């Protein structure tokens, strides 16, 4: 056991030796070491957050066929630092009639709900904050705190647009928690545990091969939870003048903005942990924990890129369509998928591996196809009712050719 195999334990023991030799009681030394660990993690995350701003702006520029920031520093790398300085020196306004305490706490809670998620992310088999055996529920709980912070932001701004934006955002968030929870139960069923580390250890076959529809629905629900396009009804600049964060300026707005980017990156990380094997890559993680960290960060970046890709390609969905999509399509589909996955897992797990993988994969494809057929039939019937049978048939005939 040396530094390259188990860095956290070695560092903790070394620091404990130093602190007890200074005469500190052991409990105090333990608490101090824990605080130092948390501080280090949060410092690294916030620096990463700054570079996520740069990544976001470069990627959106490429999707829009332009270059993005390229003036400040090589490839525009100094641009986020200029942004941070600008946000820090901006005037810190509070709207008249706003509720000062709630107004100031809301961005803090929003950032807190993102940072607290990193306590359960396993960066390597031995590097993780806390090996919680209910990690999946913890994910949902942190999302609830984020929801609360948005209501607080919208209400305390004393502004109609902020209120409407906050209400819509919270409605979307609590609605899409239902299919997300059902999809979070799929890795639980497949691996027999709710803890993140246990889920990764059981992924000899990546769960995306066993439940591709589950991975897709989780991605959709996660994008809705994040409040990013195409589900960003609350922040639509053209509809709601940027929703619940209208009245925020300066670093408080920076907290919301950077928090949203970090949240997207975190969910990219969770998507890769739950469905794409986390830090595992054909045994690379056993070589060194630092390689495992590199693997999981790489996969989280790919997940984040997919989330950005969706954001900058798709149009915004209307709020009633969003909610109808969730309650009438995603929720029944996700419950049927969960039941089917649990049943097939119990039936096929003992048999041959190829039968297992192909059976689960094909059942997912079959379920997705039949769900789309049902949706198509339903929409055809709606169209016939609205337009009259002959015209609808003509449209359908066109569509089929």
């Amino acid at each position, binding site marked *: 056991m040396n530094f390259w195999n188990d860095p956290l334990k070695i560092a903790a023991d070394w620091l404990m030796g130093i602190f007890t030799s200074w005469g500190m009681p052991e409990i105090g030394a333990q608490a101090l070491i824990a605080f130092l660990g948390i501080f280090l993690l949060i410092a690294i995350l916030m620096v990463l957050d700054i570079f996520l701003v740069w990544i976001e702006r470069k990627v959106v520029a490429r999707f829009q066929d332009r270059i993005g920031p390229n003036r400040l520093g090589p490839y525009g790398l100094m641009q986020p630092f200029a942004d941070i300085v600008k946000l820090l020196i901006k005037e810190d306004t509070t709207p008249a009639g706003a509720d000062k305490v709630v107004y100031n706490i809301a961005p803090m809670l929003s950032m807190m709900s993102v940072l607290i998620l990193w306590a359960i992310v396993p960066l390597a088999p031995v590097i993780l904050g806390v090996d919680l055996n*209910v990690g999946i*529920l913890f994910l949902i709980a942190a999302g609830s*705190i984020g929801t609360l912070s948005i209501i607080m932001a919208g209400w305390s701004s004393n502004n109609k647009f902020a209120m409407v934006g906050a209400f819509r955002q919270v409605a979307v968030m609590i609605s899409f928690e239902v299919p997300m929870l059902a999809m979070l139960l799929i890795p639980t069923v497949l691996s027999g545990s709710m803890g993140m580390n246990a889920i990764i250890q059981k992924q000899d076959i990546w769960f995306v091969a066993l439940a591709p529809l589950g991975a897709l629905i989780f991605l959709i629900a996660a994008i809705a939870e994040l409040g990013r396009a195409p589900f960003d009804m609350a922040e639509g600049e053209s509809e709601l003048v940027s929703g619940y964060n209208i009245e925020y300026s300066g670093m408080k707005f920076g907290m919301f903005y950077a928090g949203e980017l970090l949240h997207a990156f975190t969910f990219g990380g969770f998507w890769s942990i739950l469905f794409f094997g986390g830090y595992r890559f054909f045994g690379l993680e056993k070589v060194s924990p630092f390689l495992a960290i590199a693997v999981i960060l790489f996969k989280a970046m790919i997940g984040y890129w997919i989330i950005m890709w969706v954001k900058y390609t798709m149009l915004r969905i209307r709020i009633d369509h969003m909610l109808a999509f969730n309650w009438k399509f995603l929720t029944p589909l996700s419950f049927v998928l969960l039941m089917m996955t649990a049943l097939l897992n119990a039936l096929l797990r003992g048999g041959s591996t190829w039968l297992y993988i192909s059976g689960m994969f094909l059942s997912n494809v079959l379920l997705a196809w039949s769900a789309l057929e049902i949706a198509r039939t339903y929409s055809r019937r709606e169209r016939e009712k609205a337009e009259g049978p002959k015209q609808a048939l003509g449209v359908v005939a066109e569509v089929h050719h």
Partner: protein
Amino acid sequence: MTAQQIIFLVVSFVTLGSALMVVTSRNLIHAALWLVSTLFGVAIIYTLLNAGFLAVVQVVVYIGAIAILFIFAVMLTRKDMRDQSPQLNRNWWMGALLAVVTFGGLFSLLQSWSGFSKTAADFPSGFDAIGRLGEALVSPDAFVLPFEVASVLLLAALVGAVYLAFNRK
């Protein structure tokens, strides 16, 4: 004073203080937010009792659903969200008397309890608390019947809510 006792004292102090602010706050939204703080304190106490699962479920259900429901209900039914109503009604002295009597009764009951000076025993190693909870909820000779009856109750509440809010076009 072990560390556990110190943490428990601090957490209960915060929880009780927030609960007091819930009932004495003039602004309803502030009261709802103090309630969130109280529920969070209860979740921390669950964690101190080695019931981590219950702590997370408390946050998800109470804070994530019930507190948000309270806040929505307040926001959607107030004409002016900063309205301040008087905090006490005419019978506040009766409420205070009942509270003091209840506290006195509980205090005298617990005075002779020996558990105050003991620490809780740890779980035996390999004790899967969540597994046991799951099995208790679905095993026929444990609690599956109350579990199913509770689900039917929730279904009835859901159907009732949809019926009340249904907008016949």
